[in-house]
């Protein structure tokens, strides 16, 4: 649906976005992930025209928009990282206000409002001041406000950052429902476990794309094997033994009662370390991220 080509943006000495190219596919959830300062928010602001890019092109359905950002904003709903609704208005008053400025027809709005309040679980809180909502509820309200215009494309900048785990899970369930309704979603998050739920993932680091692909391909192309070992005896001694195996230094880490290690060569640890079990695991997105970050 949208293609960003060689987008760059510099603020004074900082190159916030550096030659980023990526595709946002219609009807899919694309997740942009990376640490604080990786360039996620700047990239999203460039996409909706809030920040002017230094170079590069934005293509909508194959056509260059040539700085006519209304072509993007007319089909998208953008939710910024910072809560931007009116804290002194109630949930319902905020929705009324945003429907009015988006000129949503009255009858359609009443149906939509009811639907959104039910969908987000906010119906019992519709009279509550937005400023008195929990972090998770605020984000659901902000999402509802952008959905009033029934956008085809939904752009969400870190909607779950700092939000507690339960609200994060609930928020993502709503996102998955929107995908089922045919919406195209692009969302940024610093949480890799959340990013794993996307169809496509773009990993940013210092303004550059470190890795991008479908979730399945990112894991499929992981070039090493991962094992989880349940050690017998003192876990720290076993950990040391594994670390001492040639080729495994720096590839070993603890995870609770288990030790995980990444193996690129043919080493066979089963005879070398006392263990109760060794299980081969599929890599997580965190494993993929750390592997590529180290390589770079």
């Amino acid at each position: 649906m949208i293609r960003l080509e060689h987008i760059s943006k510099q603020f004074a000495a900082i190159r916030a976005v550096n030659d980023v190219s990526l595709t946002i596919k219609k009807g899919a959830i694309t997740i942009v992930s990376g640490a604080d300062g990786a360039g996620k928010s700047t990239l999203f602001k460039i996409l909706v025209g809030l920040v002017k890019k230094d170079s590069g092109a934005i293509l909508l359905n194959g056509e260059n928009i040539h700085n006519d950002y209304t072509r993007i904003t007319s089909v998208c709903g953008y939710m910024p990282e910072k809560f931007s609704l009116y804290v002194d208005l109630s949930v319902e008053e905020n929705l009324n206000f945003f429907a009015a400025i988006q000129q949503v027809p009255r009858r359609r709005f009443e149906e939509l409002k009811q639907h959104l309040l039910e969908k987000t679980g906010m119906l019992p809180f519709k009279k509550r001041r937005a400023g008195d909502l929990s972090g998770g509820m605020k984000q659901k309200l902000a999402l509802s406000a952008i959905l009033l215009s029934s956008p085809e494309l939904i752009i969400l900048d870190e909607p779950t950052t700092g939000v507690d785990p339960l609200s994060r899970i609930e928020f993502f369930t709503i996102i998955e429902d929107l995908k089922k309704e045919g919406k195209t979603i692009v969302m940024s998050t610093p949480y890799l476990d959340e990013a794993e739920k996307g169809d496509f993932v773009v990993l940013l680091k210092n303004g550059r794309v470190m890795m991008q692909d479908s979730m399945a391909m990112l894991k499929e192309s992981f070039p090493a094997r991962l094992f989880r070992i349940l050690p017998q005896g003192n876990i720290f001694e076993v950990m040391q033994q594994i670390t001492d195996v040639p080729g495994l230094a720096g590839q070993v880490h603890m995870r609770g009662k288990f030790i995980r290690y990444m193996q690129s060569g043919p080493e066979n640890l089963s005879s070398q370390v006392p263990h109760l079990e060794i299980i081969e695991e599929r890599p997580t997105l965190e494993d993929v991220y750390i592997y590529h970050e180290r390589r770079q």
Partner: protein
Amino acid sequence: MKPTANAIEVHDLVKIFGHFQAVKKINFAVRQGEILGFLGPNGAGKTTTIKMITGLLNITSGSILVNGLDNQKHMALIKKKIGYMSQKFSLYPLLTVRENIEFFGGISGLNRKELRDQFTRIGTQLSDELLRQRVQALPPGIRQQVALLVCLLPDPEIILLDEPTSGVDPAMRRQFWNEIYSLKKNNKTLLVTTHHLDEAEYCDRVMIIHNGKIVLQGEPAELLSQNRQTSIEELFKQVISAHGQN
């Protein structure tokens, strides 16, 4: 002092703010040398509980024993045994890393020699260049690492970490957990709150608090198998919905 295998014991702990009961008669123990993960939605009572253990908040009723000592009677002694890294970043942004370490070392009661020894130890973890940088210029992961070092300055036996990996990038997060494990290796006891549900698996035991009540505690693998779940996220959803949402 009564000998105990528990570093922290919490009995019938209650905290009331005005008309709001934030913590509702909870009971739990943190065993010596273990990592206990403390999970729960926002407002569930995690930080309030931790602040009561550290003495930053008065308790309404109940009791807290730290190494067998009642924290209502022996807070001065207990404070020397506890290291607390708060959820809100608490170093001075305009001071350098070295200045922060010197300042917090001083108020922790370290003398000059002890502070010098700590710098020798810290020197293996932080470069001279990093020590000279202002804290506000550091990336979030490094800031958290410095905050942890500061919390460890008085060499506490019990370490309370309130969302230590929040805002930290994945590689730093793994490194941070390596630090936590080396503390465990040195027989430290750790109570860690987190919003990363996958980190529950990194702990020896986990405890979930919801609406001021402890609703689940145990070893991660056992809890998953008892509740017929395959992920901590699913388990968390199940437990919270079974006990009603906020």
